[in-house]
């Protein structure tokens, strides 16, 4: 800002020739001075990068209608989006985790019409007209689902990153009728990796919850 553009400074005083110290420039100098001892160098203002629209992919969008955790939704989505990204990024349902993004760890397990799927490998488009349940929708919000309670009671988690996926897989495992014995549980839960190795607790939790879920049904 040059002197001629702004002959009167904020104080309303006109300055003579020579470098002017206006209130504004004093503040700027002040900012540099107060920053300098701390940083050892002036902090340059970053170049500003304007917010850009997300990539428009013409012809790639579609309308999706689905029931997610009991609520009906309609959304315009990129047809290439995975169900996991849709849940996490559009709906803020971050319970399902991205462990591998390749269908190999089970951390992203959710239910479609009651069946377990790896949501990272499922195109969001596929759930059109269907019912999706995530860990957030498993209980009624007041009381925990018996499987959730059993995971707490049996210390079936350590870092917890696999836990939502384990629980969703476990509920499906019981409903499929694959929780008849410990061996069967171990076999039918082997798509869900727990790197912390909390398997003993996980299998025990499923065994117990299987009984309770049966009774409840």
């Amino acid at each position, binding site marked *: 800002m040059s002197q001629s553009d702004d002959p009167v400074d904020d104080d309303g005083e006109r300055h003579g020739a020579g470098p002017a110290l206006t209130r504004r420039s004093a503040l700027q100098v002040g900012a540099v001075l107060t920053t300098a001892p701390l940083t050892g160098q002036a902090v340059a203002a970053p170049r500003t990068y304007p917010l850009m629209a997300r990539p428009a992919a013409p012809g790639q969008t579609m309308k999706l209608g689905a029931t997610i955790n009991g609520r009906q939704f309609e959304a315009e989505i990129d047809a290439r989006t995975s169900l996991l990204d849709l849940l996490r990024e559009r709906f803020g349902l971050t319970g399902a985790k991205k*462990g591998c993004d390749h269908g190999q760890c089970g951390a992203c397990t959710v239910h479609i019409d009651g069946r377990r799927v790896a949501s990272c490998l499922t195109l969001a488009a596929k759930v059109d007209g269907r019912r999706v349940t995530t860990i957030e929708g498993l209980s009624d919000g007041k009381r925990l689902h018996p499987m959730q309670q059993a995971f707490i009671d049996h210390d079936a988690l350590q870092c*917890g990153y696999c836990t939502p996926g384990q629980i969703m897989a476990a509920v499906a495992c019981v409903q499929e009728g694959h929780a008849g014995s410990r061996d069967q549980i*171990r076999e039918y839960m082997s798509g869900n990796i727990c790197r912390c190795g909390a398997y003993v607790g996980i299998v025990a939790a499923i065994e117990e919850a299987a009984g309770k879920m049966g009774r409840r049904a």
Partner: protein
Amino acid sequence: MPANDTELAGNVDDAGRMLDVVAKSHPQDSARLHVTGAATYIDDIREPAGTLHLACGHAPVARGELRGVDLAAVRAAPCVVAVLTAADVPGQNMIAQAFADEPLLAEGRVLFHGQPVFAVVAETREAARRAARLATFDVVQETPILTIDDALAAGTRVLPDYDFVHGDATSALSTAPRTLSSQLMIGGQEHFYLEGMIGMAIPGEGGTMTVYSSTQDPTEVQHITARILGVPEASVMVETRRLGGGFGGKESQACQWAALAALAARATGRPCKMRLDRDDDFAATGKRHDFRADWQVGFDDAGRLLAYDVALNARCGCSVDLSVGVVDRAMFHAGNCYYLPDATIRSRRLKTDTVSNTAFRGFGGPQGILAIERVLDAVAHATGRDPLDVRKDNLFSPGRDVTPYGMKVDDTSVLRDIVDELEATSNYRARRADITAFNAENGILRRGIALAPLQFGISFTLAHMNQAGALVNVYQDGSVLLNHGGTEMGQGLFVKVAQVVAEEFGIPLEAVRPTATSTAMVPNASPTAASAGSDLNGMAARVAAAKIKARMVPVASAHWDVAPESIAFARGRVSSGNKSMTFGELASLARKSQVSLSATGHYKTPGITWDRDKRTGKPFYYFAFGAACAEVKIDTLTGEMKVERVDILHDVGSSLNPAIDIGQIEGGFVQGMGWLTTEELVFDAKGRLATHAPSTYKIPVASDVPADFRVALTNRPNSADTIYRSKGVGEPPLVLATSVFSAITDALHSLRPGAQVPLHAPATPERILMAAESLRS
């Protein structure tokens, strides 16, 4: 009396006071959040508007001169906001801790295949990833040094060789009645923390930066980020609420990703997030060091060890990283729990053109121990004695109790008792007889059993790291905020330390809220590592709580006009005789009395005196002991193996939280089993990691866990004065999995009794088959 129950009744503190909250099983503080999907990891934090995403361009060769990169197409790609190279680093382009040998972004030379060379910052992660592939590299490729053999031939090192010399192993070997020598290859291990590496940075005013990092060492992330940005550490705040697994992998190596996010945030003025794709995480982050142990042992006809000479050749990769400590710890544990009258423990820290290997649960200890366990098996096979008898005869005992690094082991009876008890409870002898009979039928299927003892040193061997800080705030309603320098990665540290604080104040556990680890709350912390998390942070938190309590006591004593000594804190109340009020009422009263209800606590482990150069002093505060008995069955035609049963008796001192400790033991064992049986890392001739996804890298799943798995705690107080006489538990149980490796060795040995078993780790089906075939021929 082993306690496999989750409740240990009747635990008391040193003063004989009954414990209310400590020494009981409590679920993790976040358990309910975890099971409802509400526990927030960094990738779950709602992104501020305008958040940008990073992806790296990775070096396409393992070694060479980096002349330049053509980034025009990358910059022109859709949604790309910025492309950053080494030249864009305002501070120092260096992520190495002490040795200045690894840059944030490659500069001049390529150090390994997959090394980050530039970072693309784009509106979406997908756009960044797509753009990153469009670069053209100008690299003069050179023949890489990849393997331990390559590095030994080329003589490349990241650090000078370093030895412990105890007595005169060379002459003892020459006079020993019997000797054996061989090599053992020991594979590395990928951490595969289920939550991959991630960092998010939000630029603040005046050059400040807030960084969310999935790290075991927020202080180091702060330090490195400040160095990269060229700002003081006080301008960088690092916060870590929880990690989705760390296992050592996020100790030093979380820094790079957080610093890249911060660099991008500085450059663009917008929040930036760097989350590694799983394949990139595999390729660009370090692993457990693989080793080749070249050993010679001298012994008598009864299998008593007389001399041991071992060279631990460790593949460190392209830089030092944590290899000083990792390989030192392998050396410290090279004798495990066995007395070696004369020993030379050598180490060679080999430099290769591969990703820099790093901390992994056990920190080198497991590799040192596996080598000597192989030696014990070989000595047993050579003398025709039961390997358990040979092990027992060589355990430390009074008078035979000095390690090769000169530290005396005081508690030798603890381990001896554990081994005797496990021998009985696992029914070892009867099962041994049964297995011998089974194998005598000369079938294709073979069974094996092994009982392996363990002695693991607890403390950072770099003495100054044995310190911790904590901050405790009591509010006027009696609720308590707890903060300390330790990070929660699933090991239950937060609940354990909260238990300590609740116990100190005599309040219920629910009244204590553990909060995210933050460099702004507790500065200059050590990493959460070395199994020392609860030892250090528990003590620091107790110091802080005790300070506040000491200020609250006079308030109550003045209020009631009673002697301070008569005041007791228990079950949420403060009382003296028939006078009583709630803890919250006293807190409120203290505030009105102008008494501070906030305090910091600091703790340093006493008596760690190790001097690395002189090779003298005491590197460990105490030892954790344990033993495991494993039984396996192998198919000698296919190499298939199944772990049939495992019994563990482990020493956690007086457990702070038995359920958490048992979980650590089970989980550590399973992880160790993976390391030694299925997890195989394969690099191709170009130095590219061929096993970079769970499809090719096989981690134990539920069906791999032994169907019969019995874990018990000794629950015997630590003789060292630790927090409520507990012991660290994070790493030692992983090493108990050497019992599985020895059991497989035992099964194979039945094919040709008396022969050395040519099995290397990991004992994959292929390796088991090869060993079986060579024993049969």
